[in-house]
């Protein structure tokens, strides 16, 4: 029925989400710098002064490699999950393709993500790690995280319509993820038997790839990349399918 201009629609939806988030904020986009900087400071303080840990040089950058992907997951997944409910008015009145709503919610966070990635790169260089050829992997691994987050958001936003508790499930999962993603610990201290499972978490895999590229100046492990790609793209396809099934009754339940 609806055969409009997807790019134009997506662009307008992203602008809307972005503007709403920053209405009346004097610091505006600076919040996306402040949050990871404060977290980086706190975690660095805790893990170099309270629990001294000498395994990792440049602990601040090491932590930041974990924080930036985690922050994106946390903010984008959370806001994406409630996006259908928050746009109930649109869903009930306009026959737009429903997929656009959660995907726009996730993509509108990419502006922050861009700023935070920039912060990460600046920090990497400031701590004396140079630019290397393996940086060419960065666009791919970041794109895969975005694809993954879009996938899970499609699922949880659709479930949130039928089961409104979904947002709390997501919130709790995000808290759990803070510990299960190697943010303030390294991959090598994870016992061997868990490592393979760990890499199936795309966020953990991304953190690993980032540390390989930025701190160790080597290209990410092929197996990790493959898992990252499989799980991200797979999640997106499955998410798209589930959403497509569930969207037909959104109208009745909103």
């Amino acid at each position: 029925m609806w055969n409009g201009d997807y790019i134009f629609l997506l662009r307008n939806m992203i602008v809307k989400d972005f503007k709403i988030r920053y209405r009346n904020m004097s610091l505006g986009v600076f919040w996306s710098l402040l949050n990871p900087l404060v977290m980086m400071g706190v975690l660095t303080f805790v893990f170099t002064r309270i629990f001294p840990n000498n395994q990792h040089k440049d602990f601040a950058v090491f932590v930041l490699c974990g924080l930036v992907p985690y922050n994106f997951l946390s903010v984008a997944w959370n806001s994406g999950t409630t996006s259908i409910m928050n746009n109930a008015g649109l869903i009930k009145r306009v026959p737009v393709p429903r997929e656009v709503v959660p995907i726009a919610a996730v993509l509108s966070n990419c502006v922050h993500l861009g700023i935070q990635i920039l912060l990460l790169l600046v920090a990497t260089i400031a701590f004396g790690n140079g630019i290397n050829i393996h940086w060419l992997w960065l666009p791919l691994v970041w794109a895969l995280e975005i694809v993954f987050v879009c996938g899970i958001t499609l699922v949880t936003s659709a479930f949130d319509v039928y089961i409104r508790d979904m947002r709390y499930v997501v919130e709790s999962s995000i808290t759990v993820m803070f510990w299960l993603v190697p943010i303030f610990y390294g991959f090598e201290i994870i016992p061997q038997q868990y490592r393979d499972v760990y890499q199936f978490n795309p966020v953990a895999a991304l953190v690993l790839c980032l540390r390989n590229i930025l701190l160790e100046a080597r290209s990410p492990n092929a197996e990790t990349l493959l898992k990252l790609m499989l799980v991200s793209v797979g999640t997106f396809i499955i998410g798209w399918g589930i959403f497509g099934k569930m969207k037909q009754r959104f109208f009745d339940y909103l």
Partner: protein
Amino acid sequence: MNIIELDNVSKSFHRAAGRQLLRNHVSRWLGYKTPEPFFAIKNVSFKVKPGETVGVIGANGAGKSTLLSLVTGLTPPCKGRLEVNGRVAALLELGCGFHPDLTGRENVMLNASLLGFKRKRAEDLYENIVDFSELQDVMDEPLRTFSTGMNMRLAFSVAVNLDPEVLIIDEVLAVGDRAFQEKCVEKIFEIKNQGKTIFAVSHAAGAIQHLCDRALWLDHGELVMDGNCREVLHAYEGHVTSPGKHKHS
């Protein structure tokens, strides 16, 4: 070719659909109770040809809004066949996609894209929309600074200027002050005279009397009468003033 065609269409809602508690889900999965369905639209059939102006009347809860949701493709019918050809511009709820923190211009663009317009086309139509609304000076201000009347004027201007093939009007035919209301009515008649299809819904007979050639009367989800606007309205008004006399057939 018919622009809208409904063949024995029914739409039911489950009464318990609003309750989302775990125990409701569990008992439904286990099959202890199936919530009783409630038919908002029951076995409705009609066809609308291009260029027709059709009014739908009925009391509150007669199924008018559900019928519009079906026609605009917001929800699929439970039974029956429904076909709509051509782009439908819904005036379902004026300014439903508007957001107070976006500027007038951003809201117009957002609304146009929601209704399926290409960027180029939306930009071409932008001038017409602003001219019609007479809000040139404030289009770069956030919508929250607009008065209610200005808001409605902008929403109406967007809806009528987007050049739909089928214009759907839900209750609201005219907004704003007296002068602007006349302009709205004039614009709708202009659309009608261009040979566009109009599908208008109202509980007030007066609103559609002048505009529509044909009327459909809905009552409790069923199509009671379909025919010449004057005759249907006459019968409807007779029914409203003395409900006992009319026999549902």
